[in-house]
């Protein structure tokens, strides 16, 4: 049996990778993918704890997170498409029209 702690560490590393992607990538799409990565890290945490606690609730919450991720993906990709249609790019560095 493997050490669940390592699974937790894996989750945190994935989460950090996702954060790095959000901070560093210029493409809105890749940033969004990085957010998906973060959500998966969350799911992994939940599954590990679900197993540890012997409580299915964690997996149920995972289910909800997936549903939310799907909903976010639908809306988010639509927004990205609309953005692209208007601006012909999805480069976040060039999306700073609104500023002080």
């Amino acid at each position: 049996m493997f050490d669940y702690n390592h699974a937790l560490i894996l989750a945190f590393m994935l989460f950090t990778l996702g954060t790095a992607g959000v901070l560093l990538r210029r493409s809105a799409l890749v940033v969004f993918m990085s957010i998906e990565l973060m959500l998966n890290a969350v799911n992994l945490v939940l599954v590990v704890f679900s197993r540890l606690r012997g409580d299915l609730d964690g997996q149920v919450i995972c289910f909800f997170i997936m549903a939310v991720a799907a909903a976010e993906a639908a809306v988010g990709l639509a927004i990205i498409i609309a953005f692209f249609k208007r601006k012909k790019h999805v480069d976040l560095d060039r999306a700073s029209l609104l500023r002080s």
Partner: protein
Amino acid sequence: MTNWNVSLLAPEIVLSVCALLIMLLDPPLRRKRLAGFSESVALVGFLGALFLGLMRIGLPVDSSFGGFLIADALSTYLHILFAVIGLSVLIMSIPWLRRDGVRQTEFLVLLIFAVIGMMIMSCSAEMVTMFIGLELLSLPLYVLAGYLRNRERTIEASLKYFLLGAFASALLLMGIALQWGTYGTLHLSSVAPGSGAAPLSLPLAAAGFWLVVVGLGFKVSAVPFHFWTADVYEGSPTPVTALMSTGTKAAAMAVLLRLMSAGFAPAAIEWMPVLWWLAVLTMSVGNLMALVQANIKRMLAFSGIAHAGYLLLAICAGGTAGNAALLFYLAGYTVMNLGAFAIVGLLEGKGERFQSIYDYSGLAKRNPWLAAMMTIFLLSLAGIPATVGFMGKFFIFTETLKAGHIGLVVIALLNSLVSVYYYLRVIYLMYMKDEWGEKPVCRVPASVGILLAFTTLVTLWLGVAPNRLLDALMAAARIF
């Protein structure tokens, strides 16, 4: 046996039914030129929700769905508040939809769902439901922010809001996961250090807590999680901005209040210093930034951030009276912001051309009534006596002082001192400057006129006679 009392969700159900009705019936009816159908349905929905919320006043605390749903005075109060917000935003948006020739079916549907999301957030007793409510509130707002997707600024606001919102959601979710993992439950009252079983890992539990705070801090736009606010407020259509600045903030603040005052009250010593700094930063940054804004919506955005800081002050104060003060100020903040944004929406003109504060020069000559009402809202935001803004601040500051945070009160007072300057600048422009270029005289639709009259009256009324609401809120704060 689990209690499945669905009646506690009556306002949400009514609103959902209305949204479905609009979606199903609007297209065929529109072809038959039955204009105004969806507006009326939405209106009926919000009025119904308001009525149902009002009906619940005074009923004992009840819970349903196995304790996932709680119907206490706090949730009742917020249901009423959200119904009022939805109604006001609806009234504001109809002239805007007509003016800019925007499709309204989906707009109304999304507006209704966003309000349902707020309501769900306010009555959820545990974090999964709360989170789904938050998403139900956020997703429509992402779309509404970019509703005029052909405008560069609007679509940019939408994208920004979406990406940052999704990022904040991910942080919040990690917090929820850690909370659940360490405590094994997500009920707001039991997810708490010191209540019930010890967490599996204290550091992870604490990390989870702070992740949740960050996620909610994003929604209430607490510094340093606030940066999206001004950009998104500026880019979004004004009625949507009004919804974001009042509804989102109130809903997230309510959850924060539940979290801090119920489950986490015993750990106050842990989070108090952080909240202290959060409040100070939020007030100060909000006010300082508002000083240098030339766009009225940005200015109101930063003023909203500063007000979030005052609200955080009330959370620091804690206790029954502190919570009552927070809820009172929430009502006041909502009313004066709705009024101010309604006026901004009226004056910006087709295509939202006139949003600079210099466009308000000479407004007193063009539209004396609008200028007078705007003055009242701004004075209230600045906290001048005889307005709800003053009363709210007064209660919050006294409660904070009573709780022993003298430094916090001094900083808050200095902040409200600074804030007078930028509110005053707009009044000064309205009354003491001549017009800056030709502006059309703005015609006020009757519905918006009623809304403005209502918000003005409430702003003044709660400033002069705050007793009844406060008494009710004291009772409410005692129960939840």
